[in-house]
């Protein structure tokens, strides 16, 4: 069991990097971004090395486990471990952080080099701290430890939104903080409650000890479920507790928005599938109708509001609300294909949203405005930017051949076998997604070149390095999602068993025959 502590190492490397960046003496501060990039790349290398050691045939079980006592008086352990879902999420974070570091290379340009360097130091140090927290939250196998990372993560994000952003940054940062904390603190009571329902003792917070509990009453289980679910729904974000996201995403610098929407919001859906379902199976099944309805509302509402936005960062944020609706729909549809689709969607959405935010950020930097109406004819002025943006946008509307298509189809197909109405409405939303992406593209990129956009430079080499890996992943996973699905499927199967649901019998005899033949 106690082999090389992969997860602790992966968590520590960015933290060390952050400490180094933070402690840089005045003369070396301009190296902050290089150091941050190196450390995030080393982390990525370690994650890749760990992934090669990952036993795909046992992807449903927790691997690379570490277990130490931390606060035995509370029953808290320092317990880490990842299964297939955890691995993909850690990998997603590890890939996105260096990309965001590179994308935020020239963040803070006020014309005063010393002051810029000083603020960049805090920016890159915070990004690295955030990476540590992200690894921790995806790897935690102790409910208390998970909660600690879940809440502590707010602090670096809060400063990243508040200190490096647009005119309403303070408002957005405070709104983000209050929403998250309100959800998180209610979850705290549920965290205490679930421990008291469990076996207790010095390691009573271990997820394994709390899985499959006999709750003293269904009411208690539902209350505890609500405590966890609301916190995750705020994070995810789900209608009606999504309103912090558009503000935060519109104000934050693009690199931060990527981490916020691409990774942090996944903590919400990750928590639903790895904590809520196994810990509260009966209550989860009881809540399915409500969650399905809320998910469908999120899908449609997010899409409709996206169409109406004039600020492109807000638009992308609302598309994410819609996409997260798909993810929660998939998780709570309780079929293996829907859940596999949802978990795959978590990965794909990370990359496609990252590409949209980053390319949009590059254009905003050039034009000095986030308003869609301020652009026009970018296709001719900046063909590379426009082209890659189109690819990312197409991934956003789930074009076949791009990664999100597969996950969206899996979710809809998996949902259809149980909840036809929900699946049908969700499919209609696909049309809406075509509307918001294509309308935005049309208004910004096509048409005659407008005067202010004529002179804008196209993508430079650094930016190409930012975008290229994302586009490559989007296309690759669009054609060949099998490696990721192989890792995810066993983990999803484990979850399904823990919740105690099975896939519904196929609707037609023919399909049933095929099923038996396999």
């Amino acid at each position, binding site marked *: 069991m106690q082999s090389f502590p992969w997860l602790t190492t992966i968590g520590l490397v960015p933290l060390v990097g952050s400490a180094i960046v933070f402690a840089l003496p005045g003369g070396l501060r301009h190296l902050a971004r290089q150091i941050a990039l190196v450390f995030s790349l080393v982390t990525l290398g370690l994650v890749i090395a760990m992934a090669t050691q990952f036993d795909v045939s046992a992807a449903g079980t927790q691997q690379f486990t570490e277990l130490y*006592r*931390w*606060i*035995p*008086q*509370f029953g808290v352990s320092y317990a880490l471990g990842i299964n297939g879902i955890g691995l993909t999420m850690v990998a997603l974070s590890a890939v996105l952080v260096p990309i965001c570091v590179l994308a935020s290379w020239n963040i803070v340009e006020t014309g005063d080099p010393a002051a810029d360097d000083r603020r960049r130091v805090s920016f890159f140090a915070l990004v690295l701290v955030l990476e540590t927290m992200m690894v921790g939250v995806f790897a935690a196998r102790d409910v208390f430890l998970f*909660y*600690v*990372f879940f*809440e*502590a993560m*707010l*602090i670096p994000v*809060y*400063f990243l939104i*508040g*200190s490096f952003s647009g005119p309403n*940054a*303070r408002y957005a*940062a*405070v709104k983000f*903080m*209050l929403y998250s*904390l*309100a959800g998180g*603190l*209610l979850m*705290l*009571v549920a965290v*205490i*409650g679930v*421990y*008291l329902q469990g076996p207790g003792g010095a390691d009573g917070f271990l997820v394994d000890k709390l899985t499959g509990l006999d709750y003293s009453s269904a009411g208690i289980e539902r209350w505890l479920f609500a405590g966890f679910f609301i916190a995750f729904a705020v994070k995810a974000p789900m209608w009606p507790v999504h309103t912090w996201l558009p503000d935060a995403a519109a104000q934050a610098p693009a690199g931060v928005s990527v981490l916020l929407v691409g990774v942090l919001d996944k903590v919400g859906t990750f928590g639903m599938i790895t904590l809520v379902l196994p810990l509260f199976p009966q209550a989860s099944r009881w809540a399915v109708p409500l969650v399905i309805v809320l998910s469908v509302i999120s899908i449609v509402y997010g899409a409709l509001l996206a169409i109406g936005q004039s600020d492109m960062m807000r638009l992308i944020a609302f598309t994410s609300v819609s996409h997260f609706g798909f993810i929660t729909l998939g998780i709570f549809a309780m079929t293996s294909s829907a859940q596999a689709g949802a978990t795959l969607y978590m990965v794909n959405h990370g990359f496609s949203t990252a590409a949209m935010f980053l390319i949009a950020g590059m254009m905003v930097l050039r034009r000095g405005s986030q308003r869609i109406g301020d652009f026009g004819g970018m296709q001719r002025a900046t063909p590379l930017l426009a082209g890659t943006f189109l690819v990312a946008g197409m991934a956003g509307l789930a074009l076949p051949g791009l990664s999100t298509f597969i996950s969206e189809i899996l979710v809809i197909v998996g949902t259809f076998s149980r909840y036809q109405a929900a699946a049908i409405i969700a499919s209609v939303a696909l049309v809406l997604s075509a509307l918001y992406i294509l309308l935005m593209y049309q208004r910004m990129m096509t048409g005659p070149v407008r005067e202010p956009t004529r002179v804008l430079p196209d993508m430079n080499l650094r930016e190409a390095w930012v975008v290229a890996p994302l586009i490559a992943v989007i296309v690759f996973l669009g054609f060949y999602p099998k490696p990721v699905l192989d890792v995810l499927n066993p983990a999803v199967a484990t979850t399904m068993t823990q919740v105690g649901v099975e896939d519904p019998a196929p609707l037609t005899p023919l399909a049933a025959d095929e099923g038996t033949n396999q």
Partner: protein
Amino acid sequence: MSVIAAAAADFQAPDIDWGALAPVIAVLGAAVLGVILEALLPRRLRNVAQIGLALAALVVSLVLLSVLWAKPPVSVGTVGPAGAVGRLTQGMNLSIMVDRPALFLQASIVVVSLLAVLTMVERSRDADPFTPQGSAVPGSDFENASRQAGLVQTEVLPLLLLAVSGMMVFTAAGDLLTLFVALELLSLPLYILCGLARRRRLLSQEASLKYFLLGSFGSALFLFGAALLYGATATVNLAAMSQVLQSGAPLLVVTGVVLVLAGLLFKVGAVPFHAWTPDVYTGAPTPITGFMAAATKIAAFGALLRVLFYGLAPLQDTWQPVLVIVAVATMVVGSVVAIVQADIKRMLAYSSIAHAGFILTALVAVQEAGISSTLFYVLAYGFTTLGAFAVVALVRERDARNNITGEATHLSQWAGLGRRSPVLAGVFTLFMLAMAGIPLTSGFTAKFAVFSAAVSAGYAWLAVVGVVASAAAVFFYIRVIVLMYFSEPAADATTVVAGRPFTAAAVALGAVATILLGVVPAPVLELARTAATAPFGG
């Protein structure tokens, strides 16, 4: 003559375990010695001597406490005449019970007092938080003359030590009279200390007077309650009282309990006995405010624990509902009213009220977890609040000639502090986050402990009220952070005084403790648990 002789013949010499009292005696002795030094030493030597004496006394006391911890001398056994005063450390009629909860609390008080002393030793002219002459009329020629002469009110530290010794006894008192004496011993020096601020002296003296009047009122309520309890049970001793009360509680007792509770809750600063807190915290010299917020809270909660969980344990059904109501009111009022404060010291005062409410939720859980979580919370909060007030003392205004003047306590003056003094702002942010209860700080561990105690005692709804209040409280902690980091620096000159190594050390120690108790709280939690497993004479 014969009467006296007869009385003398009846007099039973108290049997005193001096070893168990040694930590208190060290502090009390140093306080008395400090007063004598004031009379004997030349003026220029006094300050240094007082500092050395105070630090030495507290360190010695801490060492003695740790020796006692290994084997607390108290034992419950022989029963003397009920109500006899003075038989220390053994028997049912203990006046002072040196058991593990008492030792834990006394050590906590001594440690935070050490930090508090560090914030009070820098007495050069612009740094001195205390007036040069406490007796001078504010704004008088005499005051100006004493200021120009560079006088220093060196009696501060002996007074502080007196208060500390009172607090130490307060947490260990085994009968209501000892408790009252300790209450006065800790309060009277504080009344004086509150009135000694160097600047805004009228405000400071008003604070002192308010504290004195309301404090006397609280003491009187306590004393009246103690008298009623004595009338009903024929004893002031907590152990004997709990035995008598087993057989039911007449109305007289209930009235007494409520009055005694009122007196103790006054010291805690719980709603509805909180009205003095904001004014006194604002008016008092900031190092004294920090000391009061940290140490007085520890002492008062220690006494509450002992009175409620030990002496009045049989009446749990009587006082528990009262405590529940007080806890809810305290959390809500403290958190909500703090939101509208524009002065940092007032805000911290209301925050301390809210924290008192959080601790009270643990007291509602009458069990081991309730005791241990209270012990941990008061210590963790003590470090944080002391550090926070020490930072407040460093942020100053500047006058037109660039002289450093009073503290910049208006929140607007803190705008942009993060750009000008990143380290100081960073540390203060840490304290704010700890008070808000963010994980990996001591505040989170403490809040988790008290809320889980409440939930496990079946008061889940109280914990929910607690977290909702915490969420509201986060708003004003975060607002300070927003001001420091995301706002443009204020136009008027706010400055951070440099070159205060002792205050800086206190801030640093507070910050280190805040982080350690958040990241590796297990050792201290274990101490608290040990204290709680065999509490009160066990």
